[in-house]
């Protein structure tokens, strides 16, 4: 059985809106309950498109997440959701579909579906047969709730989509009946075969783009969403910043670079110098990059290290970029750009913060906001956890 710490659950959902709408009529929510080793994901498709659909979908995901978290009875949950949704004035029905994933790493997972295309459980390129228990509510006899129980293991992918995927290209040759689940499945299998470690983020995006390609003129005639949950060995990253509290722990500090199974970033000149001296590895800094590096010192290289950057300014810039919503439009300085892409490509990020009190910067009137290292790292931890769903560890040295 997998040890929970050896499995990272990457959960991503990519969406495109119905043309002409600026909100999506599908909604998704994720939640990670660290201490129970549990991961929750919900995808809902609201009837129609635009703001009304969005409202139905958001209400559904919010309620569903709440109910599943508290282990409420499946049928009762579905009934409450249907009772609560406002009735559409035009169609006189209230309608939203859902797929709910309640994953238990190293244990039994439950998937509850209502009227969404059946999810795919992909293992070694195969769509595993999932047995579903079907339930009907007395009050809503025409709605069917399906419950599946599975054991998900490392390497598995669970994939759910809205009917914007399965019905893509509907009515047009060669897919008179749309792309259908089989079409999407074949595409996914091919994609995974080409790129066995494809991330949930890339795969969900690929499925949605391919679905749109099936529509006439690549139009979005429906909201299109694809959710991918990928269980895998965590891709680890360790970032060292700041000199250690005690000078006699420099060697131990540098060992954190030498002995690490994953990617490494050194952020800070003194940090890089310590590691360089202890490990006898040169820092390569290309002066020619300065002009291309934007508003930050350029990234540097060291053998066995994936990125070397300046410290405070770069970390602050990265925090601002990650937090900004909508994203800042100014060009991203090179060092920040490289750090952000390493963060995004990792599941588990460990910050090791050296706590030696820095001698005061020489010029107190520096034209930048020189926040204390610790605070910036805390900010990074918050945004990486909440907005990018990373597992973040913080260690002071």
């Amino acid at each position, binding site marked *: 059985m997998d040890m929970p710490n050896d499995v990272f659950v990457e959960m991503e959902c990519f969406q495109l809106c119905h043309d002409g709408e600026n909100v999506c009529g599908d909604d998704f929510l994720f939640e990670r309950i660290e201490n129970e080793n549990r991961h929750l994901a919900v995808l809902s498709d609201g009837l129609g498109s635009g703001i009304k659909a969005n409202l139905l979908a958001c209400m559904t995901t919010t309620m569903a997440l709440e109910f599943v978290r508290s282990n409420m009875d499946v049928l009762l949950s579905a009934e409450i959701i249907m009772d609560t949704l406002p009735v559409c004035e035009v169609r006189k029905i209230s309608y939203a579909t859902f797929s709910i994933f309640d994953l238990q790493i190293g244990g039994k997972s439950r998937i509850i579906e209502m009227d969404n295309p059946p999810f795919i459980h992909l293992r070694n390129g195969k769509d595993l047969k999932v047995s579903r228990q079907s339930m009907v509510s007395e009050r809503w006899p025409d709605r069917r709730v399906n419950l599946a129980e599975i054991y998900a293991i490392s390497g598995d992918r669970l994939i759910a989509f809205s009917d914007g995927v399965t019905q893509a290209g509907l009515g047009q040759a060669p897919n008179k009946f749309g792309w259908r689940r089989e079409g999407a499945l074949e595409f996914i299998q091919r994609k995974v075969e080409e790129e066995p470690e494809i991330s949930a983020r890339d795969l969900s995006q690929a499925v949605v783009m391919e679905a749109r390609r099936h529509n006439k003129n690549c139009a979005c005639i429906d909201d299109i969403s694809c959710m991918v949950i990928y269980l895998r060995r965590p891709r680890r990253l360790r970032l060292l910043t700041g000199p250690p509290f005690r000078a006699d722990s420099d060697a131990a500090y540098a060992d954190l670079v030498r002995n690490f199974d994953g990617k490494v970033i050194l952020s*800070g*000149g*003194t940090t*890089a*110098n310590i590691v360089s001296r202890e490990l006898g590895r040169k*820092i390569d*800094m*290309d*002066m*020619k*990059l*300065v*002009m291309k590096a934007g508003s*930050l*010192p*350029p990234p*540097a290289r060291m053998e066995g290290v994936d990125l*070397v950057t*300046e*410290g*405070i*300014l770069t970390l602050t810039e990265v925090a601002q970029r990650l937090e900004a919503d909508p994203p800042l439009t100014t060009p991203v300085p090179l060092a920040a750009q490289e750090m952000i892409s390493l963060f995004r490509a990792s599941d588990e990020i460990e910050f090791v913060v050296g706590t030696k009190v*820095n*001698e005061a*910067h*020489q*010029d107190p009137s*520096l*034209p*930048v906001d*020189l926040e204390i290292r610790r605070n910036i790292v805390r900010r990074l931890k918050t945004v990486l956890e909440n907005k990018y769903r990373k597992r973040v560890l913080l260690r002071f040295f």
Partner: protein
Amino acid sequence: MSEPCKMKVEICLGTTCYVLGSFRLSALEEQLPPELADRVEVAGAACLGLCKDRNYGKAPFVRINGNRVVDNATIEKVLDALKEELEKCNE
């Protein structure tokens, strides 16, 4: 004939030096006069540690041959220092 003198210039790109203008020194290499051009190797460096030391004057700092420090560095100041070093070496 003896070996021609080679010199190494390190431009500090640490936080303090960068903020106080060391990035402007990146044009140094292109501005080397012919007598220096093929003798000088220019590289960036992480914080040289000088900004934390009161004995060294003001950032930005440039270090020549690992021992001579130019503080409050500008391209002109670095070029002057390099010419001096070259003379010393030719003596």
